């Protein structure tokens, strides 16, 4: 016990004396949180829109008006020249164009089903899809309104339209930060423990102090727990900072239990700290371990559903994500934050995550020998 405490004290002394390390631990995560949660927004707003109006009647102007009066669309220009669409899109000036054909209002009044055309810049498929969805919604509202008006003034009152009432659960304002910030929590609990434990073990290997420790009676578990406990505590401290910033600055709502989150985070840290030990056993310099850590991190993050929803992946990749411990924790953290899920609902993720954690940690500890290669 005393030996372990000696190790822990030494580790903390070294961490707090290493300025670049302190910046990485305390400042980088907050900056990451701020930048990432503002930049990785899936909200689609202010789509610049070009209007080609060949009709130019009160009705067509009303349609344009209803597009204009939303947060989603900005009307950049009106034109009657179709060639402008291609020109403007190539210049990245507009992302969408609406073409209103001649005789649009006349045909609508005569129930001749006039056609409008929406042209969307499909380079960014996600945004294009969302923009198209918004525009459809606006157009169908417009149609409902005019159909009602037109049928009221004529004999055609046999039109029945289904009224839809919509309600968004868990994140009613569809704020992407509510979705992203918990994801960033997961990323931090992955990067930090993995990097720090790998780097600090490999650093000792590089300097030669690890060899010195290996010829002392210090037991393997004492050496490793002395190394890992400080990083475990730091990771929890980090979790606390990031959550505080998320809740105060981004007004994220935390609907679940803090205790449950902390317990599952502890289990997840077995995985990431274990990976750190593993990396330190297969590399010989800090550069090497940095490289291996980044490489595995990119794999973990891409396959976790952080940016790319797992359901959008090809089937084979979807299956592969079950091998990624981060995937489980990502779902767990998002569910706890947003849905306030209790353990009962999370067992499907918590059990495989625990198994992975135990496996990775045990294997790494066995791979870490008190011997040199």
């Amino acid at each position, binding site marked *: 016990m005393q030996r372990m405490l*000696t190790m822990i004290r*030494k580790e903390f*002394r*070294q961490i707090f004396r290493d300025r670049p390390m302190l910046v990485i631990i305390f400042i980088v995560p907050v900056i990451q949180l701020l930048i990432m949660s503002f930049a990785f927004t899936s909200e689609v707003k202010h789509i610049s829109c070009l209007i080609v109006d060949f009709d130019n009647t009160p009705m067509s102007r009303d349609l344009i008006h209803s597009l204009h009066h939303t947060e989603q669309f900005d009307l950049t220009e009106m034109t009657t020249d179709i060639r402008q669409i291609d020109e403007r899109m190539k210049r990245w000036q507009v992302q969408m164009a609406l073409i209103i054909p001649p005789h649009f209002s006349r045909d609508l009044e005569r129930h001749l089903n006039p056609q409008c055309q929406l042209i969307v810049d499909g380079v960014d498929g996600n945004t294009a899809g969302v923009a198209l969805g918004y525009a459809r919604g606006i157009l169908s509202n417009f149609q409902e309104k005019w159909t009602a008006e037109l049928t009221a003034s004529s004999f055609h009152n046999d039109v029945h339209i289904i009224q839809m009432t919509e309600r968004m659960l868990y994140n009613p304002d569809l704020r992407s930060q509510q979705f992203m910030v918990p994801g960033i929590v997961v990323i931090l609990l992955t990067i930090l423990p993995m990097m720090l434990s790998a780097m600090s073990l490999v650093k000792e290997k590089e*300097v030669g*102090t690890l060899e010195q420790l290996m010829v002392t009676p210090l037991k393997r578990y004492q050496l490793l727990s002395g190394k890992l406990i400080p990083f475990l505590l730091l990771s929890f401290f980090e979790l606390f900072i990031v959550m505080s910033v998320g809740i105060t600055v981004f007004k994220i709502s935390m609907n679940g239990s803090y205790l449950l989150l902390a317990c599952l985070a502890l289990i997840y840290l077995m995985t990431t700290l274990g990976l750190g030990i593993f990396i330190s056993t297969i590399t010989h310099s800090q550069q090497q371990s940095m490289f291996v850590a980044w490489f595995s991190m990119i794999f973990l993050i891409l396959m976790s559903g952080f940016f790319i929803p797992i359901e959008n992946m090809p089937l084979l990749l979807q299956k592969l994500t079950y091998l990624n411990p981060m995937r489980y924790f990502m779902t767990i953290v998002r569910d706890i934050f947003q849905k306030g899920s209790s353990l009962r609902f999370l067992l499907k993720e918590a059990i495989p995550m625990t198994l992975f954690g135990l496996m990775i940690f045990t294997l790494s500890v066995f791979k870490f020998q008190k011997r040199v290669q």
Partner: protein
Amino acid sequence: MKSPDIIVKTENLTRQFGRFTAVNQVSIRINRGEIFGFLGANGAGKTTLIRMLCGLLKPSSGEATVAGLDIKRESEKIKQKIGYMSQHFSLYNDLTVKENIEFYAGIYGLNRKQIFQKQNEISKQLQMEPYLDSRTSDLPLGLKQRLALATALLHNPPILFLDEPTSGVDPRARRSFWELIYQKAAQGTTIFVTTHFIDESEYCHRLSIMDNGRMIAIDTPESMKKRYKKKSMQEVFGFLIREKGI
């Protein structure tokens, strides 16, 4: 039967790395209180041998005991009995002198009071009072080396392994380092030291010369010079490498 005076004993100790044989059938016996030197060029297998004896490396074949303990089965017990210092002077550069002593003493299981005593003792012995609270990285190399030695001896081990302890240190610092070694040996500590400085080999009680993993001579420096009719160890070493080397 092993004699109580023999503290390190190896029997055809061999270590291979792939197809390369770093240590080839080395058999030695080292007596208690002896300063035993291992002389050889870089890559002769000195470090590999010392690492096997410290339990850092498993031998490929052969037997060895250190303080009566088998190096294959009882390597963790051996670690209580030995001090080890490598050419890296494995101190933490970002800790102060005091903190380094405190750390290694804690690892060896000394209590608060003993740690405090050791700090005083070392600072007096090495005249380190002015440096106690400075970072180890700021120490002059010679002092750093003597501090590394002191930390390796915190638990008063009966055997001390030194792996090229004087590489990179100036001659004056080397001399004061050897004085410390003599003091320790006089107190009964067995010292096992590797070096590639031929002049240092004269300081050893007994000496073994290694080349390409094989031991090509073992004797006292005096009888080696007599046997090969050379005036200095420098000449003996050159002669042996030419005649017996591979």
